C-alpha cells in the first residue's frame, strides 16, 4: 500500500450531519403534489463519491477486483452493478466518478489503495463536496430541456450515458442510469441554487419532492 494518509470522513460520534439540501428544505420548502405530479424530485443524499484518476488499464484491473464492475473506457459511459447502487462514470480519459452507498466509500478507497500499491494513481473522496439529485416522471426530460445545454433526446442520450455539462449556468454531471430516471450530480455549494431552479422550472409540472 502507498503511504498516502487517508481518513474516514464519516465520524462515529454524534455530530449532527445534514444533507446539502437540508437548508433548502427549510428555506424553500418541499412541495408535495400527489398523483397529479408529472415530475418527481428526490435527493440521493449521503452517498459515497470517489474520484479515481490514473491509467485506465491499471485502474480497471483494481476496480474489477474490488468492486466487480469494469471501468468504462468509452467516453460518456456510465456502468452500474446489478443492484444499480454502485456506479462508475467516465469523466475524462483519465478520470472516473465512483458512486457507492454511503459508508462504503472509505473501505473501498482503502481496498483500492491496497490493490493499486505504488502505481501512478489518485483517489479523492469527494462525498462531502457533491450530492445527487434524482429526477423522474413523464416530464423529466422536458424539465431538463429547459436548463441543460446538452441534447437530452433519447437518440443522443441513451440509458448508460453521463456527461459533465452546464445545468442552469452551473457545472453539473448529468446521467441517465435507467429509462425513466435522470440524475444530476451537483456541487454542494450549488445544491441550493440548483434545487430552487428545479422547483421553479418544474412548477408547471406540479413537482413532487420526496424527502
Amino acid at each position: 500500500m502507498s503511504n498516502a494518509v487517508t481518513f474516514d470522513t464519516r465520524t462515529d460520534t454524534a455530530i449532527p450531519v445534514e444533507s446539502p439540501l437540508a437548508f433548502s428544505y427549510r428555506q424553500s420548502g418541499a412541495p408535495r403534489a400527489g398523483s397529479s405530479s408529472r415530475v418527481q424530485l428526490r435527493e440521493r443524499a449521503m452517498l459515497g463519491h470517489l474520484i479515481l484518476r490514473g491509467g485506465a488499464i491499471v485502474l480497471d484491473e483494481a476496480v474489477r477486483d474490488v468492486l466487480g464492475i469494469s471501468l468504462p473506457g468509452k467516453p460518456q459511459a456510465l456502468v452500474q452493478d446489478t443492484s444499480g447502487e454502485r456506479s462508475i462514470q467516465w469523466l475524462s480519459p483519465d478520470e472516473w466518478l465512483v458512486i457507492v452507498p454511503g459508508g462504503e466509500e472509505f473501505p473501498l478507497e482503502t481496498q483500492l489503495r491496497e490493490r493499486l500499491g505504488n502505481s501512478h494513481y489518485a483517489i479523492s473522496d469527494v462525498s462531502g463536496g457533491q450530492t445527487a439529485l434524482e429526477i423522474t416522471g413523464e416530464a423529466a426530460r422536458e424539465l431538463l430541456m429547459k436548463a441543460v445545454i446538452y441534447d437530452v433526446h433519447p437518440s443522443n442520450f441513451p440509458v448508460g450515458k453521463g456527461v459533465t455539462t452546464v445545468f442552469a449556468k452551473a457545472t453539473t454531471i448529468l446521467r441517465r442510469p435507467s429509462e425513466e430516471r435522470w440524475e444530476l450530480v451537483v456541487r454542494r455549494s450549488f445544491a441550493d441554487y440548483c434545487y430552487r431552479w428545479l422547483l421553479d422550472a418544474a412548477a408547471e409540472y406540479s413537482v413532487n419532492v420526496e424527502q
Partner: protein
Amino acid sequence: MFYIYCPYCGEHREEEEFHPKGQAHIERPKDPEACSDEEWGNYLFFRNNPRGVHHEMWVHAVGCRKFFNVTRHTVSYEILETYKMGEQPSITADSQKQPREPAAVSHQEGVRA
C-alpha cells in the same frame, strides 16, 4: 450557438463548455539558460496573429477538462479541425492556400456589391 468537436469526449459539444487558451505548439526552449534575451522574450511574450489559418489551444472547461488543439480560420472563424495534444495538424496555412484564395476573393467582391 455552435458546436465544437472535443477529440477526447469524441463528440460535438456546445461552445459554452469551451475556453480558448491561445496559440498552440509553443515549445519551451530546451536550455533556457543558453537563450538570448530575444529568444526568451519571444518564447514568453510574442504570439502569432495570422490572417487565415491559426492553430490554437482550447480547453473543454466544463466537460472532460482536457486541453486540445483547434485549427481555426481567423477571418471566417471556421473551425477546420480539432486534434489531441501532442498531435500535429493535418490542415495548415500552406495546405489551405490553394483552395482558400479564390473563395476569399469572391467573398470580398460580394461585400463590395
